[in-house]
């Protein structure tokens, strides 16, 4: 089992540790509910050093990545980031990622930990001869500072003003007299940042953030926060057998271009079920693998993620259901190990008060 550069810090803080993506990772420190609430109301910091980072550059980098990624690439301006999928020929999802346009012919990709080695091979294999790819994962620390209070902490630590940063953009900044990469992105839905730097600076940034009031948060809260926002988790909502179109994340898919898997993904006849959000009627939670039944009690699909929603006070779930069941407002039942739960298909996100897209200046 691998460890991130912050492993000792997590243990010293008394975190509950568990394996995730090949790493021994913190699940919680003070508690999932407290960490979740703090992310929505103040500031938390996550160790995301386990995630993978690649650099892709060359004269054909744009056209190569346009083929490898489901999202628009050429349309990205330098300074912008974009969420998209790496798909296989069957339209399944090899991984989900964020691509950063660093320069005219240079890109930075951020991928999941468990899939990183396979992603690297996959992308490398699909690049043309002159396009360079470098795996920066081992030398790159990544930390997520998230929450409405994160902007003030970030500004205190960075040399250059961050007030002009728009949602889903990146900028170079200076931390301890060293250049670092900061993007206004994250997995919580709140105002927040992801910082990429050396492993030594990563340790320092973790400590500085805690000293400035950020609460350490683990993968438990990260999961409940992303679920409330309707964000997918690779291995749950997305996998290499599931048609990317069925995930319903149309903003990750450019329907106007050809890319690996687009023949399946862009063919409406190949979409046979859809990922939907299900609001449960009380606090009892559905779990990954539970059956979804339609109003007549007939099998209609499967739950991919489920949890009590700390912000909303009831349980929520993601599930793939048949097209005829997928309309918002439809009532469903979920069969768990122990009972059947009543639910309703609702619009995403579940949680609608997140600050992530608001004007950053209001939080500085």
């Amino acid at each position: 089992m691998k460890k991130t550069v912050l492993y000792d810090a997590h243990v010293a803080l008394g975190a509950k540790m568990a394996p995730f993506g090949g790493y021994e990772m913190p699940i919680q420190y003070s508690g999932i509910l407290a960490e979740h609430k703090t992310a929505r109301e103040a500031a938390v910091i996550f160790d995301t050093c386990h995630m993978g980072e690649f650099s892709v550059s060359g004269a054909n980098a744009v056209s190569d990545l346009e083929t490898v990624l489901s999202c628009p690439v050429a349309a990205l301006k330098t300074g912008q980031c974009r969420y998209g999928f790496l798909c296989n020929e069957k339209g399944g999802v090899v991984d989900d990622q964020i691509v950063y346009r660093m320069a005219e012919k240079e890109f930075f990709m951020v991928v999941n930990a468990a899939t990183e080695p396979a992603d690297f091979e996959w992308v490398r294999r699909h690049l043309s001869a002159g396009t360079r790819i470098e795996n920066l994962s081992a030398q790159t620390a990544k930390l997520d500072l998230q929450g409405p209070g994160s902007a003030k902490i970030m500004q205190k630590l960075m040399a250059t003003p961050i007030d002009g940063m728009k949602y889903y953009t990146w900028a170079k900044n200076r931390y301890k007299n060293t250049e670092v990469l900061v993007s206004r992105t994250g997995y919580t839905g709140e105002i927040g940042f992801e910082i990429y730097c050396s492993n030594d600076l990563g340790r320092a940034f973790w400590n500085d953030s805690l000293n400035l009031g950020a609460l350490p948060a683990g993968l438990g809260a990260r999961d409940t926060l992303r679920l409330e926002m309707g964000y997918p988790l690779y291995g749950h909502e997305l996998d290499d057998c599931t048609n990317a179109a069925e995930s319903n994340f149309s903003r990750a898919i450019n329907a106007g271009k050809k890319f690996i898997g687009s023949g399946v993904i862009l063919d409406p006849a190949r979409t046979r079920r859809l990922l939907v959000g299900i609001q449960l009627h009380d606090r009892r939670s559905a779990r990954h693998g539970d059956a979804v039944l339609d109003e007549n009690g007939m099998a209609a699909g499967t739950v991919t993620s489920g949890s009590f929603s700390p912000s909303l006070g009831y349980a929520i779930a993601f599930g793939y259901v048949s097209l005829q069941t997928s309309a918002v407002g439809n009532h469903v039942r979920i069969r768990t190990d122990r009972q059947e739960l009543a639910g309703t298909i609702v619009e995403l996100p579940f949680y609608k008060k997140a600050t992530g897209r608001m004007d950053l200046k209001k939080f500085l």
Partner: protein
Amino acid sequence: MPTPTDRKYSKTHEWVKIEGTNATVGITGHAQEALGDITFVELPKVGADVKKSAACCVIESVKAASDINAPVSGKVSEVNESLGTAPESVNSDPYGAGWIFKLSNVNLSDAAGLMDAQAYDAFVESE
């Protein structure tokens, strides 16, 4: 959180406080710590008969659902309705406000196989 010495403990981490032929049941400090934040408690029905070591209700945390086993046999005489809106009392006060149900007609011989506080602490340590 110290383990109270006025009650008995099961290997499945429930506590039972027996008074005459009545008993109060909850989960231990160690159990709530291991489960994490409790989000839901399915209470047993008042009047139901529960059997020693058999699952009689369910407790859910953010991450998982777990059975609660009856540490002794008896008839459910009262349930902690306040857990419906405040299941977090099981975390904050597992031996007090976080009690789960009460039993009458308790079979006193059932208590024989249960641990005292010292034995339970040693059991948790060894697990």
